């Protein structure tokens, strides 16, 4: 397999964008079990599969593109390019419904929160649009990578939280995580996009009642949904259920790993494409799915990754 270094395109890359194929067709989703631990592998497999397909000799020129100006290396799965083309000219556009989830990683030290938040959301939505076409984005959820409900120390002690919601080893090392200032900044950008009609509803993920209550005082457009992980049990903190009902926030399920993409495997994957000195750190990941609403059929599903990279092959 041709690595990116051999094609020299990766040498000057500072930013990596990866658009996966349609996981419904490349079978990545289906082959995996539904178990929570596996959803990490899903993102990783999607990225790895995209590297392989995009650098295969049969791939077209648009699958690996380096923007010399910005140092952005974009890698598109040929299947994703195909899916995007078909979405763009779909004759049943009103039947397509997109849901997306943006995972955020801690900001680099010293970054200006407002500026970076705007850049990240703009970039993520631009990439999402490129991949899913003009279909209606029904729900757009924001999540902190590596954060889950019970990591939240403000949670009520007397809530009957079931064992599956007990803390696991948190991989988010940064002390100021979840960074609510960052989220609020991101949310403001999303509110504008919502007002412009681009995003039908907004959502948060793994928020306790207390976090929601604080969040609601800081923002204008309240989240329509709060994602919680149910695994195979249905016991939820009562206070959260009541609070969400009162505030018209729908509790919805998800089964994403709280850390969708661990740093080491991503770096390893990148090094496999470049050199042993390469480095890659995720900035955000968008998980998306496209439903054919009237038939209950998942038409397309995939991931978009943005990472800061260094090929180490100069």
């Amino acid at each position, binding site marked *: 397999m041709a690595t990116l270094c051999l094609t020299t395109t990766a040498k000057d890359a500072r930013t990596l964008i990866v658009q996966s194929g349609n996981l419904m067709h490349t079978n990545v989703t289906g082959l995996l079990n539904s178990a929570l631990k596996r959803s990490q592998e899903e993102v990783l497999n999607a990225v790895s599969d995209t590297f392989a397909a995009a650098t295969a000799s049969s791939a077209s020129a648009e699958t690996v593109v380096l923007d010399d100006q910005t140092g952005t290396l974009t890698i598109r799965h040929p299947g994703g390019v195909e899916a995007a083309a078909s979405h763009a000219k779909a004759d049943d556009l009103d039947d397509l419904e997109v849901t997306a989830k943006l995972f955020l990683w801690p900001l680099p030290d010293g970054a200006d929160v407002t500026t970076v938040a705007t850049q990240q959301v703009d970039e993520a939505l631009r990439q999402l649009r490129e991949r899913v076409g003009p279909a209606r984005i029904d729900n757009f959820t924001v999540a902190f990578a590596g954060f889950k409900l019970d990591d939240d120390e403000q949670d009520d002690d007397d809530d009957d939280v079931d064992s599956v919601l007990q803390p696991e080893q948190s991989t988010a090392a940064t002390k100021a995580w979840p960074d609510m200032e960052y989220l609020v900044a991101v949310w403001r950008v999303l509110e504008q996009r919502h007002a412009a009609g681009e995003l039908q509803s907004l959502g948060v993920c793994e928020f306790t009642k207390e976090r929601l209550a604080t969040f609601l005082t800081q923002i204008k457009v309240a989240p329509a949904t709060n994602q919680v992980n149910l695994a195979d049990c249905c016991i939820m903190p009562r206070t959260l259920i009541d609070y969400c009902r009162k505030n018209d926030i729908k*509790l919805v399920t998800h089964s994403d790993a709280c850390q969708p993409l661990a740093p080491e495997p991503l770096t390893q994957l990148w090094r496999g494409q470049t050199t042993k000195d390469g480095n890659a750190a995720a900035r955000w990941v968008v998980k998306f799915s496209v439903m054919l609403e009237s038939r209950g*059929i998942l038409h397309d599903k995939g991931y978009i990754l943005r990472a800061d990279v260094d090929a180490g092959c100069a």
Partner: protein
Amino acid sequence: MGLLSLGTPLHWKDAKGYADHVRRNGIEQFLNIYRHVKDRQRDRLRWGDEIEYMVISYDHENRNARLSLRVFEILEVLQREENEAQGDPEKMAKLKTAWRPEYGRFMIEGTPGVPYDGDLSSLLKVESNMKLRRALVQAQLRPNEAIVCITSFPRLGTLGVFLDPHHEPNGDACRSLFTPDEIINPHARFPTLTANIRRRRGAKVAINMPVFHDVNTPRPFHDPTIPVHRGLFPEDEEAAAGAALPDHIYMDAMVFGMGCACLQITFQACNINEARRLYDQMAPIGPIMLALTAAAPIFRGYLADVDCRWNVIAQSVDDRPREERGLEPLKDSRFVINKSRYDSIDCYISTDSQLRPEYNDLDLVYDKDICQRLMDNGVDELLARHVAHLFIRDPLVIFRELVDQDNTVSSDHFENLQSTNWQTMRFKPPPPNSDIGWRVEFRSMEIQMTDFENAAFAIFVVLLTRAMLSFGLNFYIPVSKMDENMRRAHRRDAARTEKFYFRKQVMTTPGDKLGPVEDEYELMTIDEIFNGKADGSFPGLIPIVNSYLNSINMDVETGCHLSRYLGLVRARANGSLITTASWIRQFVQKHPAYKHDSVVSQEINYDLVRAMDEIGRGERAVPELLGNFA
């Protein structure tokens, strides 16, 4: 409905002269529909379940549970709302339930009033609608009556009293040694269907299910309760002349089969090709679901060595004369036919590239002229052969007044044959001049005692179709292997002890290199099929469904309910919960009055039916059957 007069049904000797007429016009009707709607696109998913109930009448004094023949009185009330809504689309759209009579005069078929749609949250309506149906019937019952979901009524056709009111078995339509004609739906169509099957066959139907040999069961077992020397009808001699096999439970009437209850699901596809794909892909699931929903271990008062109803129904409507069954050289018949009208499907029909010609490995019996005519009119060969295969049969019931029809507005002749081919799957063209799309019916499942279980299996099947279409799953195995799976599904406790042919790679990518078909499938346990193989080589149907659900924004309430339903299916499949058939069998074997001689007495039946009744109403805990899901 039961009082509706359609006219004069013809005796078989008159009806058979019209067989070619009905076939010829039936094909024209099919072609008219096909031309008109073959390009119909973008229909929504709509689906519905059908549940068949039995109405029980208790005689507490004599400790007897009988089938009630009062159903038509009850139906009249149940159907009132629908009858009044006729012609008013607004009212029709608000109907909560719909009711139909069935073959047995003790049966009621209930469906949701309007189909469910593709929205996941509509799945939550399923169980509550089933509960409503139960309550609506319940409200019409007398204190000693009950509505119970029973696949096969254990004492049907036994000596003594099993009907309320009692009738002696001396009816001319079925001429059965065991069951009276009064047990049949009184609408003219049904007694005629019964009689014409017998007349066409040249004998009564002969149903033989292996008896379960318990420690005190005589071996060989010759059923002492068969009145072999009755001498009322010429057919009475058949039992002694070999129709009743030793070591078998012998039954001689259509009601033993068509009086069984089942759980069926109908889907509307977005277009004809999706319907053909659904038909094919769900077909191999049919025998698997039959094994998992097995609920019929008792026939005519004896424990059987099978757990399912299917073969009983197949034999109960087998109208093939000896020539068609291959027992005599063809003289008057046109074909030797391998199966009953009620049986597993014989051929796949999808236009999908996943369908390899090798999968259609039965030597399909079909009418070559009809096939040619269909192809001359633009129908592709696969579909033409399917229809020409259904049309090897004769129409059994013809009404004198309905012989001549306007083929542009009627599909009666087509439906005459289509709806008397009762296969594991049914491919349903839209009715003429309707807004209904192409549909597919999934027909193998047996009825469960509780609404919760019936909802769970219905919902699992619906979700599996969505996952199948979303992932482009491939369940194909050769038709002959599906047939073998049907045989295995009947065996005692098949869900826990049998292995079934299943496809190894259900995720195939177009362009994959094709190996020999024999390498594509292997024998798997039900647990492996549903929950996956331990070595990870097969993902399992439930993880696949979960994988589909995980990609959808689903509210917590829906998620919790669905996890209960899928939990039940998972537990039945891994054997931690037993099937309905096993539960019934164990109940009999543990009953103090059971003499370990395979006999399910009136007293045992009374206690059994009452227990099933209580379970259905949620008044009796059965953790071995429902775990803590219900």
